């Protein structure tokens, strides 16, 4: 009779580039989860849990299939659980499952879409004024905080956040236009 044996995986058992891929997904994952939680703190928790589960279930992942879709499914399940917990804690519902499904809905995405969008983004950045380029890169690429940048520029953090928001919206439009043309 066959008995299932428990086996401890060693590093070399893990599909080799799983971790690199997972690493590569983090910045996408981060905002995907933020879009599901609306809170930076809560997103952190969901991401940790997602990474944990992804690594735990690594054996379930079929190499060659879409890792991103797989990880994002885990993440949206976690986010759903998070909202249910919240609902239970508060006694009333703010975000229901339907809403979550809607948010987590992914457009059919071909491979490399993120990279193509990023290429478009670089082109779009070139269209900005140098001052705005610097602002955007300081904030998002170098990871400086709005509060610090505001002090440097002698403005209010909220005003700066507004400015960044406007620039982001312009960039998003620009990316969409470029991809449509291509």
């Amino acid at each position, binding site marked *: 009779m*066959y008995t*299932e044996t*428990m*086996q401890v*995986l*060693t*590093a*070399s*058992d*893990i599909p*080799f*580039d799983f*971790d690199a891929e997972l*690493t590569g997904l*983090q*910045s*996408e994952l*981060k*905002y995907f989860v933020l*879009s599901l939680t*609306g809170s*930076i*703190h809560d997103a*952190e928790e969901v*991401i*940790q849990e997602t990474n*944990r589960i992804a*690594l*735990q279930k690594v*054996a379930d992942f079929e*190499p060659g299939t879409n890792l991103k879709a797989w990880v994002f499914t885990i993440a949206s399940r976690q986010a759903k659980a998070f909202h249910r917990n919240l609902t239970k804690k*508060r*006694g009333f519902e*703010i975000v229901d499952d339907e809403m979550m499904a*809607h*948010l987590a809905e992914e457009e059919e995405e071909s491979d490399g879409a993120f990279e193509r*969008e*990023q290429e478009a*983004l*670089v082109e779009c*950045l*070139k269209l900005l004024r*140098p001052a705005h*380029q*610097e602002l955007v*890169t300081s904030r*998002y*690429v*170098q*990871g400086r*905080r*709005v*509060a*610090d940048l505001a*002090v440097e520029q002698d403005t209010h953090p909220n005003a700066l*956040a507004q400015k960044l*928001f406007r620039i*982001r919206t312009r*960039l*998003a439009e620009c990316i969409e236009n470029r991809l449509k043309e291509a």
Partner: protein
Amino acid sequence: MKFSNPEDDREFDSLLAAFSERELTSWEQDRLWTLLKNCPERVEEWKRQCRVVALLEGLDEGALAEEGIAVSPTNVVPLPAACDEKVKRRLPMRWISGAAVVAMIGIVAFLFSGPKSPEQTTTPVVAAARPEKLEPRETESIQEKYERTVAALPMTASKQRPPTSFASLSKTPDESVDFNNDIRPILADKCYHCHGPDEKSRKADLRLDMEEGAFADLDGHFAFVAGDAEKSEAVIRIYEEDPDSVMPPPDFHKELSDWEKAKIVQWIEAGAEWEGHWSFEKPERPKLPADVKGDPWVRNEIDAFVLRKLKEKGLSPNKDADRYILARRAALDITGLPPTPEELKAFVEDESEDAYEKYVDRLLASPHYGEHRARFWLDAARYGDTHGLHLDNYREMWPWRDWVIQAFNENMPFDEFAREQIAGDLMPNATRDQRIATGFSRCNVSSSEGGSIPEELAVRYMVDRVETTATVFLGLTAGCAVCHDHKYDPISQKDFYSLAAFFNNNADPAMDGNQKDTPPVVVLPEGEMAIEWSGLMKRRAELRVEMAKERASAVPAKQIGAHPVGDDALRLWMPMDEMGDEALAVWVDGKEQEIPLPEKVNRIKDSPVGPGIVFEEGGAVAIPNPGMFNPDRAFSISFWVRTPDEVRSSTLMQQLAKAGKDGKKQSGFKLTQSVQGGTQFEFCGGDDGLVRSLLPGEEALDPNKWQHLLIRYSGGRSESALEFLVNGKRRPLRPGTEDLIDFDFEGDAPLQLGTSFKSGGMSQLRIFDRWMTDEEARLLASENVLRKPDAPESLKKLYAAVADDPDYRDLSREFAHTQCRRDYIAFRSPTTMVMQERTDSEPEAFVLERGEYDKKGEKVKPAVPAVLPPMPKGAPRNRLGLAEWITMPSHPLTARVTVNRLWQQTFGRGLVLTAEDFGTMGEKPTHPELLDWLATEFVESGWDVKHMIRLMVTSSAYRQSSVSTEEKIGADSDNRYLSRGPRRRLDAEVIRDQALAVSGLLNEKMGGPSVKPPQPQGLWVVVAQGGSNTKDFQQDTGEDVYRRSVYTYWKKTAPPPPMAIFNAPSRESCTVRRERTNTPLQALVLMNEVQFVEAARELAEMGVRNYPDDRRGRLKDMTLRVTGRPVNPTDLETLQYAASEFREYFDKSPESAKELIATGDSPPDESLNPVELAAWTMVANTLLNRDDVINEN
């Protein structure tokens, strides 16, 4: 973007601008979801924004530079000192907290199960082309691999971390070093996580929050060696370059700055003097600073400390504010209301030297003082008018709120105030008021949700009570130790549960029953009922004693009569125990009748009390002329019932007459069972109403089983006068509507048994016109045992007294009568929830693993945290002892925490900014000596709150003008050094009360049930569950809507919007410091909210009536009333211009004028020209929106 209305769109935009830059507040998050809901366009926009940030953050800096995109040079720009450190600490977005993930993954890493199919059990996927940078070693464990992976994750925010300690930029290490100021904060922030109070996460046995630990010998290594930095292991490790040995570990992402390292070395070299955490040391009364003695600015001790600090900082104070400003400021801070024009005039014109002091004393004597002080206390105590969870039903607690107001007005010494609230019920001969005071610990949210686990809820309440008590009185974040030892403060998990043990012997049930008066409660009858009540309670206590005596001395009965209880007032008896007959015998009022055995009703033998009947579907027994119930009279229905073999909708019995005007309604009663298993008794009153009592599903009768059911009604004409007893034991009812029974039964009808009771059975039905006592209920339910030859002696003894002894019968009948009056009065009187100890157990608790209610660890007795002084000698180990300990004059925290809160209420910002946290992670006091002086003064004055407020508001520091200069904003941006007078946006309640007061609308009535001023439609419905009694908001009418905001009905899951929008907390948990934000919503409330518009119209009416032809005079008067200051000429011109513009507008559109002035509950003055009134309503509305009106100046 244009999705719906422009306000929502603007709000949505501002959320989009903020979400990636900072944590949204929970209010903002709620708004975000609300705005996203049912709006696909917004959802798309939201996803797009998230996506674009992800794209941006994924870009590579080097590549961008190559593309010619401007990237700023990467050197860190030092931040100027004006930036608030608190903000900095909150902002870093560390997406993956390395340490936390590693810790978590450590648990799961070795739980990986092997591949699923046997074919794959050999080494599965093989590494072929590994990317070089992530090349793992062959022997690498998963844990290591994970750490490496995590380390490679993008840490954008931490790429450019500015120096961590802010203070480091303004100080240099050659200044003197102070442990509590310089070293402890470094240790707390960077080291405690692994070397702190939490035993479980402590590494290398090194503990740095205690002196013993910091200097301990650990296998020949010493973390700190006084005077010798080079021998100190800590120093060696913080300067270590090897990433495997350096402390803190790089993974922890808390590297020390050079300044911090230098400071630690300096401290060790200087002798490594250790001090306890400042707030855990008893405050000593500091000497007054000598150098400012005699300075004319110094009016009292407060000023001496403040002035010295200002001088230290190179600042100087402002002059006194002018009298108008001062008058308004003091009135708002002392009473929460602006001064009336008369009060203002009296003060401004008072030429005596102590005019201000006299003015302050008048304010302190006003009853509005207590209302204002109480308001802060209600936040802290999480007071509300609903339970806060699940149905969020009404909860009656307002007598406690009134107690708080009265206590402040009577200037009850604060230690007494605290003691009575923590343990008033345990004081010797506790008075009614002392018991009411304990409502403080009953203000927590509670639930009665079906399916909740009572133990879990009980733990939740206990935890909340400890957290609240610790926050309010001790300024400790004890809640951090629920799941594990506190990470930063020396409060172990065991300390927490030892503290919790004080609150773990309460008589209140875990399920609140969704009722307004979850026991224990104090009943507070008024007027004549109050007199009757006290007599009633006394008599009931006497009767209980006498009856117990009689029962004890009874001789066991030798014979049992026809009934197990006295047969007086037995209206109907149907034994059903005759066999073989084709008829059933029924005694009505002692007369025997025979009823032919109907079809579909069968006899059976196996009821516990002999034979009975059982019903088929549709089978029924009709008993003619049994007489009707009368809601004024008591009754009891006793019978044995066999529940159907499966739970189904059934009718057990009913007696319903046709009633109502058209004869289509019913009158009488009905006993039914639902498919959910609940058992329901309905009083039907024809046209006048229906009152239902429900024994809910989880408490219902067991299916397919014989059991005894007693339904008793005391005649108290309320739903709560009815009770179900199953097998002699009371079962909690779910109150449906908690209604009064204010109708009578009409008509007459036969009593029907069955009709829809398939497979159900009955035996020994008795209906009495009196209330059965608990003892009688027991006898009725034990009839089967009692009739056996071997019945226990105790039962025969009980029978002898209760059923046979005529003396006992008199006592028992009198007791039943008091029950009727008790129920009648209790239901018609206010109640308030209180604390009460269980008598059958001792206070104790279990340490709960990870805080989970069912993971019980060590059992602990009540005790106070080890780091704080011990309980006074002889103090009992219960809440009373805890109260005595908290209010010991030598307690290091209570007085400090309390005066700090009073200071915060008066100056707008505490001397310790984190009023809720005096622990190591809290802010340090800006004026430590002043805080200690105030704390000792408070205790020495006999905990005199008014004295402290008086000291504060009469100081020069408080009286300063709030005018600021550029220099002051630079050096003292948030006025922590008090270089100017307080200026802040007023709190929600003050803003509303002020509008009501200046317009003359305010109703000054004090106390009583909470009131419901208007609020937008539908707010409650969206948060309410189906059966909630706070689902539909019913606005009050008349004068009640103009009461002070402290009396506004507070539904915890949907607080009153004009309060919530101005940062009032939900009151679901303890809040000792409100946020203060400014949002566009606030302006919308001020401009459009019904009562604000109504207040503006009232103000305009007053102006137009008083100055019919003098528009300048009108403006001057209105401005003085609203701002508390004479109008200046520029404003006068502007406002006059505005008035004529408004007039012009309304002249053209008189309809909108009429519409505007019709706003609110009170009608506009008909005698005034509507167009003129509307124009001036707008002027008044403008005034109420002024910056110097919504702010304290």
